[in-house]
Each structure stands twice: as structure tokens, then as C-alpha cells.
């Protein structure tokens, strides 16, 4: 299939439809409203369900209901709206329902600003809502990658019966890039024999997260933890750049900042400084083993973020005390320039050249 030029938000919407995400609930919020606008016309054409709800609180609970009835249900939002979904996401994780939620992150905290940010890293990767749960978190760094991720997100949500978050900063949602919609195939999924579709010829099914007996609740916690351990074993995804040659500095960055990191690496090379990049594609599970392996080959690591030091915590956790891990970030909706990243590397090299 040939490539078409599409805005990130619209490309995500189209890819989700092709992946069978035919049950979509939304609430308008910049910078992701184009997904809703696109689907308000497109969903009619494909015979899916589209509904603009009264709030993100309602949205995520509509997703719960539809997912519980066996549909591929999903939604999109941006940071303040995503926060409103945390209650429902916790229930969805606890009831072991599949769903996909896309967060096109804007600057925060609070109402913040509408420009790109990566400030929701902790919220996405550490749970976000109450209780002991986690989501599989995918972070695209281009519109094409976002398109490719939607079928994977739906598949993994169904496979793990767990929420999958696709987290893109505002750049991913708003920029236009040429994209190609590829055909993806996955191994067959188990039937959704747990769904509430009417108790015809079987015992009633129950979608529930209330467990008053501590032993039952703990067993759920253990089951969920085992699921997250399986994700750590089987779902870690990352991209490496320039790691096949010696380097003094390892940049760690995801999403848009990883692209800036690559440009910075080219500029550093001209200055005679060798650098490489590790880009986590899954933010949870985090590629901690690979960070450690690649970090050991560097003099130090630099986490480059559009936040005030969130990703860096996971990088430090992976590296322990083996190498210094530094942080450089811009926030408030400001996208760091490659020159700033170069400057951050140089200042920490202390004038030494390789």
C-alpha cells in the first residue's frame, strides 16, 4: 500500500479502526481532539460505535462496560483528561479487562499548557490510579510508529487482559508525516468466554473488582504481578542507535526527544564526541537489562526528557552505581533543541575529547 500524509491523531484513529477498535468513547481535549473528529465521521462508515461522553470519568467507564461485553474498546485523551480516567483504569486493571487508551501528553501539572510534554511518564508507567496495578506502555516516536503500534496495543490488551497505554507527546499527535497502514497478523487469541454477553447455556459471568476476603484480594494481586512479570520477560521493546561502535556517552530518550537525541548525536560527532542512544519503546516494561549493558560501555548516561527528571529515575534504577546518570530536560511545553542536548553532554564531559 502506498503512503499517505496524515496528522498523527488521525493516523492513530484510522489504524485503530483497522485493528478492530470499533468501540470508541471520547471527550474533546487539546491536543488530541482530532481523533474524535476523525472518528465521528469514520466510525459510521465502518459500522462501529462512537460516542462523545460527558467527561473522561464517564469515558473510561464506558470503555469498562464495552470491554466487559467483549468489544475492542478504546479511548484517547490528553493529560488532564487522562488523570480523570485513573479511577476507571484501576477498575479495568483489577477486573482484568482489555482496553487501549492513548494519552497525547501536554504540559502540566494542573491545566498546564497545550504544548508537547512527557510529564505523564510516572503516571503511565507506575500505575496512575489506586492500588497495585500496571499498564503496558508503548511510546511511539513517529506517526508511522504510532500507526504500527495500535494493532499491537489491541492484541496485547486482549492477550494480557490488561489496559495498554499508548503515550505520545503532543508532537506525535499534531505533526503530519507520511504513513503506511500495514497488515499485521498475530497468533490467535483465546475466546472471550468471560465477557458479559448474556448467560445463555452457561453460568453467569461476572466482571468485578470487589474482593472482601483478604486472601482472595491478595491472590488477585499475585495474579496481576505475575502478568506484569510476564510482560517484563516478553514485551520489552527498544531501539538502539550508534551502539555498534564505541561511544563515550549513552543518551536515553523516548518519543520525540529520541529523535532530537539522534540529531544531537550527529552534531556531537562533528565535535569529535562519540555518543549512542537507547530509545525505550515500551516504557513499562522498561528495558532495564539493555540500559545496564549499554550503559557500562559509556562514561556516563544522559536522560533527555520533556519533563523534570522522570525517565531518569528508571535509568538510574537500571544502572545502580555503575555509571553516573545525568539528566537534561525542558518542560512547560518547550521542546529541547539538539544544540541544548549537545551542550548538556559537553558540560558533563568537562572539556575532555575522545
Amino acid at each position, binding site marked *: 500500500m502506498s503512503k499517505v500524509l496524515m496528522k498523527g491523531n488521525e493516523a492513530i484513529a484510522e489504524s485503530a479502526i483497522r485493528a478492530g477498535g470499533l*468501540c470508541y*468513547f471520547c471527550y474533546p481535549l487539546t491536543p488530541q481532539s482530532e481523533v474524535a473528529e476523525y472518528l465521528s465521521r469514520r466510525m459510521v462508515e465502518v459500522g462501529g*460505535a462512537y*460516542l462523545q*461522553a*460527558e*467527561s473522561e*470519568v*464517564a*469515558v473510561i*467507564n*464506558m*470503555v*469498562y*462496560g*464495552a*470491554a*466487559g*461485553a*467483549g*468489544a475492542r*474498546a478504546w479511548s484517547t485523551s490528553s493529560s488532564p483528561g487522562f488523570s480523570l480516567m485513573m*479511577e*476507571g483504569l484501576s*477498575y479495568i486493571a483489577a*477486573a482484568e479487562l482489555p482496553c487501549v487508551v492513548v494519552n497525547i501528553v501536554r504540559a502540566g501539572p494542573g491545566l498546564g499548557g497545550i504544548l508537547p510534554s512527557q510529564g505523564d511518564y510516572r503516571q503511565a508507567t507506575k500505575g496512575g490510579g489506586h492500588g497495585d496495578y500496571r499498564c503496558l506502555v508503548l511510546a511511539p516516536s513517529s506517526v508511522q510508529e504510532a500507526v504500527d503500534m495500535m494493532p499491537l496495543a489491541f492484541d496485547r490488551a486482549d492477550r494480557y487482559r490488561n489496559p495498554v497505554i499508548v503515550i505520545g507527546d503532543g508532537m506525535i499527535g499534531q505533526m503530519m508525516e507520511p504513513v503506511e497502514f500495514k497488515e499485521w497478523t498475530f497468533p490467535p487469541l483465546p475466546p472471550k468466554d468471560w465477557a*458479559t*454477553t*448474556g*448467560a*445463555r*447455556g452457561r453460568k*453467569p*459471568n*461476572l*466482571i*468485578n*473488582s*470487589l474482593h472482601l476476603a483478604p486472601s482472595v484480594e491478595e491472590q488477585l494481586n499475585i495474579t496481576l504481578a505475575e502478568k506484569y512479570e510476564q510482560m517484563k520477560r516478553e514485551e520489552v521493546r527498544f531501539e538502539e542507535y550508534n551502539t555498534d561502535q564505541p561511544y563515550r556517552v549513552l543518551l536515553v530518550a523516548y518519543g520525540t526527544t529520541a529523535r532530537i537525541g539522534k540529531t544531537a548525536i550527529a552534531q556531537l560527532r562533528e565535535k569529535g564526541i562519540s555518543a549512542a542512544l537507547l530509545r525505550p519503546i515500551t516504557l513499562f516494561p522498561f528495558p532495564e537489562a539493555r540500559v545496564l549493558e549499554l550503559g557500562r560501555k559509556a562514561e556516563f548516561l544522559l536522560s533527555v526528557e520533556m519533563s523534570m527528571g522522570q525517565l531518569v529515575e528508571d535509568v538510574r534504577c537500571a544502572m545502580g552505581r555503575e555509571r553516573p546518570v545525568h539528566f537534561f530536560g525542558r518542560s512547560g511545553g518547550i521542546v529541547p533543541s539538539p544544540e541544548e542536548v549537545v551542550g548538556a553532554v559537553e558540560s558533563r564531559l568537562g572539556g575532555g575529547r575522545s
Partner: protein
Amino acid sequence: MKTLFKRPESLTDTPTHYCPGCTHGVVHRLVAEVIDELGLRERTVGIAPVGCSVLAFNYFNLDFQQAAHGRAPALATGIKRARPDLIVFTYQGDGDLASIGMAEIIHAANRGEKFTVVFINNAIYGMTGGQMAPTTMPGQVTTTSPRGRDVSDVGYPMRMCELLASLRTPGFIERVAAHTPQQVVKARRALKTAFELQRDNKCFTFVECLSTCPTNWGVTPFEATRWLEEHLAPYYPVQNFKKYEDEKDPKPQTPDPKAGDGNAG
């Protein structure tokens, strides 16, 4: 031998945890009887709320989803939008529906979501131990209104049927009670109408049932019945608020502002 009385198929053989004199059990049975009578059991999904009836899924022999506080209408919306062929009902108390879930119920009603709401109004938070509800009566003593509900401080109790009936979309709204045999018969009739309308894909249906909470009201079951009659029923009239009528007029259409009115120069 002719069977005169048996447990509806839509109820399980499980003793409920409800207190003596509480009307939850009666309403559960009425809902189950209606579902049985209409032959809907195998395509019905119930939504349990948070509150005393949070464990309703143990008592109904139906597929069930358990919702977060007040969110039952959002779950029901999700199920109905994904599977319009299913019969869906929420079962909610007054704290759940009229306080924390106010946005969800109003918007579901206004969209005309084609599910049924069974709303139990006993003017108090039961499960959490007798706190003031949005439906608590003026002067009524609860654990969080120890000097009685002060309407100058927290306003008057909210009448949900009247509130929802002010919307144009919802098709069937009725308040019933279940504290006397006559009221039980009327309540059953209203529930049956609601499920029939849903089965026929007609409209949003809402049945409020005035209920008793002897435990948290601090009275005997018999006194609770009398208190309902003397204090709740006058403020919350037991009556129909909206009967479904097929809309004969064409749906109103407002012209696109960009289209102009044809008189612009």
C-alpha cells in the same frame, strides 16, 4: 401439583446480606420476576453499584458487571453501545446515583440510552453506616447530620424523577414504593413496563423505588414503613412522571450557522 410460588430463575439460591425490613430483597425479586416473565434472562446484563447492593451480582442469576461509585450508567452505556441486542439494567442507591453519579445518570438519560435504571431511594447512605445522602429529608438525623439536615447549609433533598423528567429525551420515568402489598404490585407493573420498553428498543427507562432502612434510620421495620409513608412519600410523590409516546413530529433540526438564513446581503 400446581406450583403457586417459587424462586424466579433470575435469582440465585443465596441468602442476602440485607437487614430485616430493608426493601432491597423485594425489589431484587420484582426485577427477577419481570426478567423471567419477559424471557430476557439469557440476554440480560446487570450493573451493580457501590453501596448496600454492591453484592447484587451474588443474588441475580444473570451476567453482571460491578461498577465504581456512581458510574453504573456509564458502564451500561458502554455495554449497550457495543451490544445493542443485550438487555441492560443498573441497580443503584441514592448516594451512588444522586450524588457521586449525578453526571453519569443525567447524561445517560438525556442521550436516551436504552437501558433500565432501578433506583433505590432510602434517604440515607446505608453501606457506609448511615451518613447524609442528597435525598436525606430536612431535619433528618444521620451520622453526618447529627443535628438534622440543615437545608440552609446543604440545601433541600434532590428529587431525581422530577429532575430527569425535566429533560425531553427520557421516555419512561416512574416513582414507586415497595412497603405495602399494593405498592409492590404497582412497582412490579412499572418495572415490567420499563423492561418492555427497553426490549422494544424504545427509550431510557427509570424506576425509582422509595425504600426503608430501619438499621440506619434507627427504627423497627414496622416503624420504618410508617416513616416512609409519613415523611418520604409526601416529598417524593409515588407516581408516573413520563409515559413513553412514539415521537410523531420530525426531529428538530437547527440549520448550520455557516449555512446562513438566505437573507444575508
